[in-house]
């Protein structure tokens, strides 16, 4: 069965592809479990292929690109995408899935959009190809590009060129399109940031189209569209902002800035990690291409690896296996261990001259496996303390594997037995959450290069400083010898944070291979690797029991929490912790117990993802709240407002919540959805039933410490150096607004840089909704530090006491007076700084938990880190004024949020239509309205996916992901989102910049529980598991006897 299928025509008489499906066979030496046979996806190579690559047929092509004839020599099998990007350096066209599933590579061929990844370059001869680089005429932007800048059309920006090209093609045919036509036109491009409403608005604006539909027929008839409420013919409603009085006094908030990176993203000039290496001005050219040999088994150990044939293939430059790394590291997944604990784990890595050769070399690495039993069931693994995966225990703890009788985290407050004893009603529930993947359009990609003893890494990385720390420690190098660059990141959502040493350290593979070869080495995930072997959101199982009085008072809560951390711990313990804090921190309960376990399994590794445990807990808790309210016969809104924790209540018996306007956040959203229409399910009898559902609760708003660095150079220009990763969160613009306010310099006139370890201020990992509240506050303090120095210098220069001066409009002036002295003059007068203590105020010094010692320091040292200090000293050498700031997160800071959903459920089929989502967030201070609005759209879009479609399905036997593609995983497209109503509330925090709190993760929390509760409200049936896929809702209605069957329906 494992014969070479190409050498021997197969039996069926099909004309084409059947003959070429790869040979079938099992190269595993060991026993294959449970009646399972895995094809290795590779055939035994023919003798000639062992030493020589299959010859490519190369032609000299003349392509018409952006109105010019271009000569290029390319093999027949090379896609137009690779020729444009790698041969012609036109990297504005992005490579996403590379398989026609995401749309990021959209270009125009004779004026019509096509996927460049599914077009062969040779096939494009004679066609007019237009890329994003070809839209500008005489240095002037296309109106669409300008509109994308003006309307914050980009979040991460990775799909923006494709969106703009799709829009350009539409405008060629329909100069004044309707919103529906625009949604149709961009429906071939997935925006994982979920910025569709802004993209639609930008295209409509560029067309100068009125908001009202013109009645023109749609571009394509939408026969199935009528089965769903989408696509809608109207435009998306604008964000509703409730400013508090103090906002009026903040001058910078009265302006509406453009996104800092809008120009780079709308023109294709933004260089993402995968774009570097193909332009004349890049720091390196012609990298080697690396690929990983991955385990086809979910649990197996390597008996032997024979890589001799691969090494013999000409063009293969290096191969690394576990033998090439230190023994101490072998327990970690990341160091190519000789053990595979999930399907897809990397076992060996190969670097070759081309991607074709690297792929071919994979087939020539022969791995002999000892296949072991798989253990996919976390409840079973916990019950019998399964030590087969990790010998020290079945539970992941903060200090490593631990036995099943030691929870990862637990809390026991009050007297739980007494609490249940005094209850009138006991309500139990069991909730199961799904395996969502981050699925950034830009897959993980990096290039590593050594310059002497220094490692340089260009990475698609959310968090350059965390990545540097992990890489330095795993390589045993000093941190300052590792340099990480991440200008632009094509979507992160948590999945591109390298901050645990047992993540898939592809940067490390590239570094090892680069060291071996002395060449830059590029490692890029394929879409399938990204989805099937990357990290995914931890699936959880929650079992709970609540005691309640008849009036709705909660007397006791018991929670047993299991999280599937997969083969390795990674972020597992921290995810469990955040989930539990959410459970105990939401509703006032005198007696509660939580026992939580992160459990090892043979499944894909659980990882970091927007929401980070808190989301899973919110789904369970908010569904249970509705179940409780349903059983007590209380309106779920009133039940929540009666029991919710509020400012001053303790989060978990220790830290009190800070200010939040919960009533406004909940009630304003309730008004917008029309909650007064709420009726219990018993009132509904039609075939199609309408339901309303909601959630509310505290939202993440940061953690840990940040440094701030602001420099006023000798020309008086203000530079803001942010360590924050630019993963498309638009927070950088908000932070620039903060500095703009302090120094009185417009955002447009500042120079803002980010995410390069040698240049920008150190900050903790860019995660946990911390950019604006933490990095923003550190930047505020750094600006204040500049202000302080400016005033001192100004006083000297003007001969006026400091108290009578102010910083305003790029000048130091007398209060209320005119004139003064400009920054340029003062920057040139400034003496070199010798004291590097940062500026901070008492609210910025908060208790800090040292993760190494586990101890909390109530008054941590307020000094900047070595990295920031080094960057500051480099700047001082150039002169000017350097401002330093420091902030340590105040644990009582919490944003607040609510989400309301309206759905229709077809009782004959179980089909759920989400009609409307209202999402309200108290974020303290709205610094950048367009950015905040787009975060709400995007978070709610991902939350919608989490609720309705997204779940990485693992085959029950082999534990290999079966839907690792956009087609079967199904992130929402521009035709798949309902009306979304964003609402922003301002209730300032104690220590955030101008009171700002976090928002990055928050909007993803609401849709899944709110939609689930709306389904309960429509049907009376609680679906205790997400996603609410059609089959699941159908089967639940049927089991409850609520499905209207074929016979009954007429």
């Amino acid at each position: 069965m494992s014969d070479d299928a190409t050498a021997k025509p197969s039996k069926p008489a099909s004309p084409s592809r059947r003959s070429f499906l790869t040979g079938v066979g099992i190269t595993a030496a060991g026993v294959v479990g449970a009646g399972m046979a895995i094809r290795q996806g590779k055939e035994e190579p023919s003798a000639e292929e062992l030493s020589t690559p299959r010859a490519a047929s190369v032609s000299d092509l003349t392509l018409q690109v952006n109105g010019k004839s271009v000569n290029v020599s390319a093999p027949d099998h090379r896609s137009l995408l690779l020729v444009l990007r790698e041969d012609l350096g036109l990297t504005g066209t992005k490579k996403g899935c590379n398989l026609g599933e995401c749309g990021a590579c959209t270009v125009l061929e004779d004026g019509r959009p096509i996927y460049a990844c599914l077009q062969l370059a040779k096939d494009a001869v004679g066609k007019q190809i237009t890329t994003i680089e070809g839209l500008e005429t005489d240095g002037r932007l296309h109106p669409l590009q300008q509109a994308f800048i003006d309307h914050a059309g980009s979040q991460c920006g990775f799909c923006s060129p494709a969106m703009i090209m799709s829009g350009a093609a539409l405008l060629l045919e329909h100069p004044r399109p309707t919103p529906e036509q625009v949604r149709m036109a961009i429906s071939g491009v997935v925006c994982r940031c979920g910025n569709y409403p802004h993209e639609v608005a930008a295209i409509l604006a560029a067309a100068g189209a009125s908001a009202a539909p013109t009645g023109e027929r749609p571009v394509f008839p939408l026969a199935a569209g009528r089965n769903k409420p989408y696509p809608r013919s109207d435009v998306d409603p604008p964000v509703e902002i409730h400013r508090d009085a103090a906002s009026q006094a903040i001058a910078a908030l009265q302006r509406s800035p453009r996104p800092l990176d809008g120009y780079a993203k709308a023109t294709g000039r933004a260089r993402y990690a995968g774009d570097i290496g193909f332009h004349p001005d890049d720091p390196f050219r012609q990298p080697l291409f690396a690929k990983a040999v991955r385990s086809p088994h979910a649990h197996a150990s390597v008996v032997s690896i024979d890589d001799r044939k691969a090494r013999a293939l000409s063009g293969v430059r290096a191969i690394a296996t576990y033998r090439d790394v230190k023994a101490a590291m072998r327990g970690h997944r990341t160091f190519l261990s000789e053990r595979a604990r999930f399907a897809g784990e990397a076992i060996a890595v190969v670097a070759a001259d081309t991607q074709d050769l690297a792929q071919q070399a994979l087939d020539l690495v022969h791995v002999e496996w000892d296949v072991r039993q798989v253990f996919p069931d976390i409840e079973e693994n916990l019950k019998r303390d399964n030590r087969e995966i990790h010998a020290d225990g079945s539970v992941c703890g903060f200090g490593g594997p631990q036995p099943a009788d030691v929870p990862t985290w637990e809390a026991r407050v009050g007297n739980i037995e007494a609490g249940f004893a005094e209850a009138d009603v006991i309500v139990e529930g069991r909730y199961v959450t799904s395996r969502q993947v981050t699925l950034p359009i830009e897959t993980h990609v990096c290039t590593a290069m050594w310059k002497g003893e220094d490692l340089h890494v260009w990475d698609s990385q959310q968090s350059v400083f965390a990545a540097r720390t992990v890489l330095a420690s795993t390589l045993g190098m000093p941190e300052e010898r590792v340099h990480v660059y991440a200008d632009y990141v094509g979507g992160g959502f948590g999945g591109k944070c390298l901050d645990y040493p047992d993540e898939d350290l592809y940067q490390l593979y590239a570094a090892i291979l680069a060291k071996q070869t002395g060449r830059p080495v590029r490692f890029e995930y394929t879409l399938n690797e990204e989805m099937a072997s990357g990290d995914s959101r931890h699936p959880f199982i929650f079992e709970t029991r609540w005691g309640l009085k008849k009036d709705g008072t909660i007397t006791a809560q018991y929670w047993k929490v299991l999280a599937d951390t997969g083969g390795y711990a990674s972020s597992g313990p921290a995810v469990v912790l955040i989930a539990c804090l959410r459970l105990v921190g939401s509703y006032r309960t005198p007696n509660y117990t939580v026992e939580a376990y992160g459990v090892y399994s043979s499944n894909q590794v659980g990882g970091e993802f927007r929401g980070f445990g808190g989301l899973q807990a919110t789904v369970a808790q908010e569904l249970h709240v509705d179940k409780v309210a349903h059983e007590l016969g209380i309106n779920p809104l009133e039940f929540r407002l009666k029991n919710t924790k509020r400012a001053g209540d303790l989060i978990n018996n220790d830290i009190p919540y800070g200010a939040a306007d919960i009533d406004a956040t909940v009630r304003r959203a309730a008004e917008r959805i029309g909650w007064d229409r709420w009726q219990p399910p018993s009132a509904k009898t039609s075939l199609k039933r309408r339901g309303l559902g909601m959630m509310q609760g505290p939202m993440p708003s940061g953690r840990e410490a940040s440094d701030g660095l602001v420099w006023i150079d000798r020309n008086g220009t203000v530079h803001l150096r942010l360590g924050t990763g630019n993963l498309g969160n638009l927070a950088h613009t908000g932070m620039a607004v903060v500095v703009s306010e302090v120094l009185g310099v417009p955002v447009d006139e500042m120079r803002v840089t980010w995410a390069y370890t040698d240049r920008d201020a150190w900050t903790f990992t860019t995660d946990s909704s911390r950019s604006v509240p933490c990095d923003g506050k550190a930047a505020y303090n750094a600006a204040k530090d500049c202000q302080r120095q400016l005033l001192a210098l100004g006083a000297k220069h003007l001969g006026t006491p400091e108290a009578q001066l102010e910083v305003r409009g790029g000048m130091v002036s007398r209060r209320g007076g005119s004139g003064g002295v400009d920054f340029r003059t003062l920057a040139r007068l400034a003496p070199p700084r010798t004291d590097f203590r940062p500026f901070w105020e008492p609210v910025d010094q908060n208790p800090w938990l040292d993760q190494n010692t586990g101890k909390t320091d109530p008054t941590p040292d307020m000094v900047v880190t070595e990295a920031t200090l080094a960057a500051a000293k480099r700047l001082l050498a150039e002169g000017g004024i350097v401002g330093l700031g420091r902030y340590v997160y105040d644990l009582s800071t919490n944003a607040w949020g609510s989400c309301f959903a309206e759905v229709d459920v077809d009782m004959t089929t179980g089909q759920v239509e989400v009609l409307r989502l209202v999402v309200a967030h108290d974020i303290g201070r709205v610094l950048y309205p367009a950015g905040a609005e787009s975060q709400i759209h995007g978070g709610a879009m991902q939350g919608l996916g989490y609720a309705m479609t997204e779940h990485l399905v693992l085959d029950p036997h082999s534990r290999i992901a079966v839907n690792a593609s956009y087609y079967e995983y199904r992130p929402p497209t521009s035709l798949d989102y309902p009306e979304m109503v964003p609402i922003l509330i301002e209730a300032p925090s104690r220590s955030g910049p101008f009171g700002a709190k976090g928002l990055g993760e928050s909007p993803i929390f609401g849709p899944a529980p709110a939609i689930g509760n709306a389904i309960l409200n429509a049907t009376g049936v609680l679906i205790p598991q997400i996603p609410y896929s059609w089959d699941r809702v159908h089967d639940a209605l049927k089991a409850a006897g609520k499905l209207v069957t074929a016979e009954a329906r007429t």
Partner: protein
Amino acid sequence: MNLQIDEPRPFKLVSPASVEEAVGLWHEHRGEAMYLAGGGDVLDMVKRQLARPTVLLDLKRIAALRGVTANITAPQPSVTLGSLTTLRELAEDENVRRYLPALATAASRVATPQIRNVGTLGGNLLQENRCPYFRGPWDCYRHGGMHCYAYHGFHREHAIFAGDRCYVVSPSDLAPVIVAGNALVHVHGRKGPRTIDAEELFVPASKNLMRMHCLDEGEVLTAVEFRVREAPQPRHLAPHDLGIRGTVSPLPVDKRFPSVFIKFAMRNSFDFALASVAVFLDRDGRRVNRCRIALGAVAATPYRAFDAERVVAGNLLSSEVIHEAGRAAVRGAEPLALNAYKVGLVQKLVTEALQELSA
């Protein structure tokens, strides 16, 4: 595991100028060559190295394979569609929209604007199934194995009709239309041209597990011909399918032979159908003489809903008839553990399609 593969093994791209040349080249490179049309499926499979041809024969440069020819005024009116006609061309063609609205709708509902700009009629009809086990590293029946991994694993989108060891579904949106429309499929092989009924193009699992369609090796699908009104003496005399009577009708052709297509997919873009239905009617006034209903994505082939057709034929499209037909359409369905929802979905789609035709 071939997770890491997303670029093809090197191959040579050859562009023959005629069908004869293409067929000749195929046989010259027998066992090594594949035909390339729009590339949506073939390039995907080649890039994942599910197929490793050394030669791709690009059919796009063969002008004869492209375009829509309407011959409405002839004694036997027909619309003939070249197999390399793009989906977008089908969706926008005035004759297709008028005489074959189901086809125009189906073409406009495939995937995305980008795919419709390059995807072709022939490629859509002949595409391989989408079962993730078939496309993944599993040694299933269709790869010569002895196990259906989907049956024992994840099969939410699999067949509810005519499953036989294998439960893949026909993914094509155009396939149910050509079956419901009783079209003729023209193919060209080494022995020259031949014509087959649309229904015969597709191979059920019970007949052959290894293939989705019946074309011989090296044959090229050249055109699909819809007889807008059939010949009085049907060429193909199956008992259930006597063709459409040659009676004189006061209705114009496009009103007398209306058609409709409805697809349901989880997303409104990109996705393959969870289920689809195509219905073609022959009617005088409101009374239906004949009716053909084909379901997509519920069996390995476009699945004729014979029971529903019989309910409709000879009747007025009343609410009772329509609902009775909807119920009849799912008679005999055998859902698997995870796809029972498809039964209600099919019933709903058939009902809606008939309601649309009765309006």
